[in-house]
């Protein structure tokens, strides 16, 4: 009994002491976020209790072996039959799939109204309009979901959206078909991230081509170059299940494809859709067009007079690999950061085509829809 008390108290005290000794971490690689640093006490923050909250966050964030503890929790949950962790399904074959269980009806309705009226205006002005609504990975890879997953039915939802949005393209049908018919090892979405892969983007492009009465180049016409085999995405961070294997990222292009000049509005002009410096960093998805800028202007070597306004979220960044063959200029706008009136901008730039590209969950939760 004495030994038991000594061992337990000893381990406990040692661990407490260790917590004080180890140096602070500023950033967590696996969680992809900044950690709480030792808070400073001030009279106001003590009186309103916020100092104590920061202190507890600090203790939690800087806990010794924190990552191992978090991973242990996710693993035991999985062992107990839990189907999700941190808002992410623990799917089959190591897939961590973004959950989409509740539809924010009100916000979605508002966004639909705004987008539809803008697109109708554009249509009336004689511009070509399209809307690509991208399903989440869970919708495309239903067979990877845990049994009875409480997902909303996205295919039903898309059927409804078609009625409301001008130029609506059923991307999900193409993706689901590709998923069912393609080879087993193909990956349309990442296992550790909510984004689609370049291949996923290709099938959406195929559907987009069909909608415009074109035929997309066959898959075999593309070069596929591996960018990284060490990609751990946001689902990985959220789930906390650090035993999952990393993803592979690829670039897809045609040998004789159009060349590009990209202006991020930062003064310099670049010639590649890929910024490989991000492959050394945590947020590797930014290898595609550096992530999200308010406005990214892409001038291609194509000469057909078509000027495209692309209103989009981050899913578009892999999509432009294919899109660049069809337009002379592409103006990518991220409404979260773009502050100019879009109607005026369209006039100014003499836009001929308008394309909206959003993932359904992002779209229905976005609070920046106002034109």
């Amino acid at each position, binding site marked *: *009994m*004495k*030994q*038991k*008390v000594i*061992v*337990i*108290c000893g*381990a*406990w*005290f040692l*661990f*407490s002491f260790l*917590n004080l000794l180890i140096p602070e971490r500023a950033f967590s690689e696996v969680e992809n976020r900044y950690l709480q640093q030792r808070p400073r006490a001030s009279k106001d923050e*003590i*009186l*309103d*209790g916020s100092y*104590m909250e920061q*202190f*507890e966050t600090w*203790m*939690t964030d800087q*806990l010794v072996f*924190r990552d191992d*503890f*978090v991973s*242990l*929790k*996710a693993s*035991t949950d999985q062992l*107990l*039959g*839990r*189907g*999700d962790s*941190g808002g992410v399904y623990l799917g089959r074959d190591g897939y961590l799939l973004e959950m989409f*269980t509740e539809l924010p009806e009100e916000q979605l309705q508002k966004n639909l109204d705004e987008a539809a009226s803008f697109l109708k205006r554009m249509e009336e002005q004689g511009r070509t309009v399209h809307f690509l609504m991208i399903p989440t990975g869970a919708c495309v890879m239903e067979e990877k979901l*845990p*049994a*009875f*997953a*409480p997902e909303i039915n996205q295919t039903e939802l898309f059927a409804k959206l078609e009625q409301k949005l001008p130029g609506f393209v059923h991307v999900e049908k193409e993706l689901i078909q590709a998923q069912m018919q393609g080879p087993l090892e193909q990956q349309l979405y990442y296992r550790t991230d909510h984004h689609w892969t370049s291949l996923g983007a290709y099938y959406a492009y195929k559907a987009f081509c069909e909608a415009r009465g074109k035929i997309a180049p066959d898959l075999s016409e593309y070069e596929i170059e591996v960018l990284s085999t060490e990609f751990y995405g946001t689902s990985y961070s959220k789930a*906390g299940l650090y035993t999952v294997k990393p993803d592979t990222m690829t670039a897809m292009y045609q040998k004789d494809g159009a060349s590009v000049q990209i202006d991020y509005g930062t003064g310099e002009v670049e010639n590649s859709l890929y910024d490989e410096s991000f492959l050394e960093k945590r947020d590797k998805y930014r290898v595609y067009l550096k992530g999200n800028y308010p406005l990214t202007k892409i001038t291609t070597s194509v000469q057909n007079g078509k000027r495209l306004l692309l209103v989009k979220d981050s899913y578009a960044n892999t999509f432009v690999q294919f899109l660049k063959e069809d337009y002379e200029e592409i103006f990518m706008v991220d409404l979260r950061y773009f502050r100019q009136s879009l109607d005026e901008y369209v006039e100014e730039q003499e836009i001929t085509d308008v394309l909206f590209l959003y993932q359904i969950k992002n779209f229905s939760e976005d609070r920046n829809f106002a034109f």
Partner: protein
Amino acid sequence: MVFSSFTFLFFFLPIILVACYVAPFRLRNGIIFLGSLFFYAWGEPVYVLIMLFSTVVDFAHGWLVERYRGTVKSRVALISSILVNLGLLGFFKYSGLVPLPIGISFYTFQTMSYTIDVYRGKVPVQKNIIDFGAYVTMFPQLIAGPIVRYSQIQKELTGRKITIEKLNSGLDDFFIGLGKKVLLANSFGELWKICAGQEQTSILGAWLGILAFALQIYFDFSGYSDMAIGLGKMLGFTFPENFHYPYISKSITEFWRRWHITLGMWFREYVYIPLGGSRRGKLVQLRNILIVWLLTGIWHGAGWNFLIWGLYFAILLMMEKMFLLRLLEKLPGFVAHLYSLLAIIVGWVIFAFDSLIQGVKWLQTMIGFTDVPLFRSADLYYLKSYGILLLIGILASTPLCKRLGDAYLRHPVLQTAGLIAIGVLCFANLAAGTYNPFLYFRF
């Protein structure tokens, strides 16, 4: 500060324990007093003043009661003490004008027990305000019980020993309590939150939800009590038991002897028996039951649902006293058990919803009275996600786990490994920073 926080586990507790073990005995109550004030102020930096006020006022009242013993003034002091305590409780808990100070329902009841017992001559008056302060503010039981009456630890306040046996048993209690809270109650809390938040309900979903709530509230509260009792032992105190497998009861009368025992004992000692208890005929007894359970109900909060909840149990208890108990004894054990569980579950539905209408709706869903499906596929998902844990929870709420532990976990090495495993799993859950409320802080 809550027990299931890293600040407590790795910062406050090691320091206070070492300080208490190293310091000479005469300083220990002072350390507990100051440490407890810090513990309380960490969560309630302003309201700590109310607790200090309460400490000083009750100390003074106790002194006045003793000083004027045998005269009217003594009685006036007693009444004044009760009025001040009930006044504090009434204002902060029921006026709805200010946020509720954590634990006020617990510490006002404890301080009241002191002045009443001094008046009755059951305990000697406490002349040392540090010792008294250590009793009132004692951090293990300060904010969620057990409600320790002064008479129960009066002797230990001035003379207690910390032995290796107590430390050993205290560690067991503490880690088992932490496990109940962090590993079981928090998960059941998540499930309850999911079920209660569903827009479309089903019969299965309603049962699953209330089962989760019943297990959550039991493991949350009894886990907290276990931790408090364990910490008490580590400091050399013996606190009374607060839960004794309430869900194996075969009647509601039995349930209330097993659930929140210290609150029941408090009302018994200071309300039920003074009103005549069961010694003045059936009718008076029934009236007393009604009064005590209405008080028990509103002790939990200002909401109507708590009053109804108390009334509900009062009616059941009165019925049991009149005829039901005799009937239950004749029935097979499992029928009596089933009756009790159903009655308790219905009680939790009333308890869980602030609005009575919502509670009634939930009950209707449970019995399929409304137009809802038997189950939806999402329910199966949650059943699969939480099923194993629910099973563990159900087993752990019976004496089975303890019996198995006593039989097979005798070896100290196994016990050590067991406690460390519980500890590591708890830290893992807390590090992942999921849902971590304490239900009884509301009361």
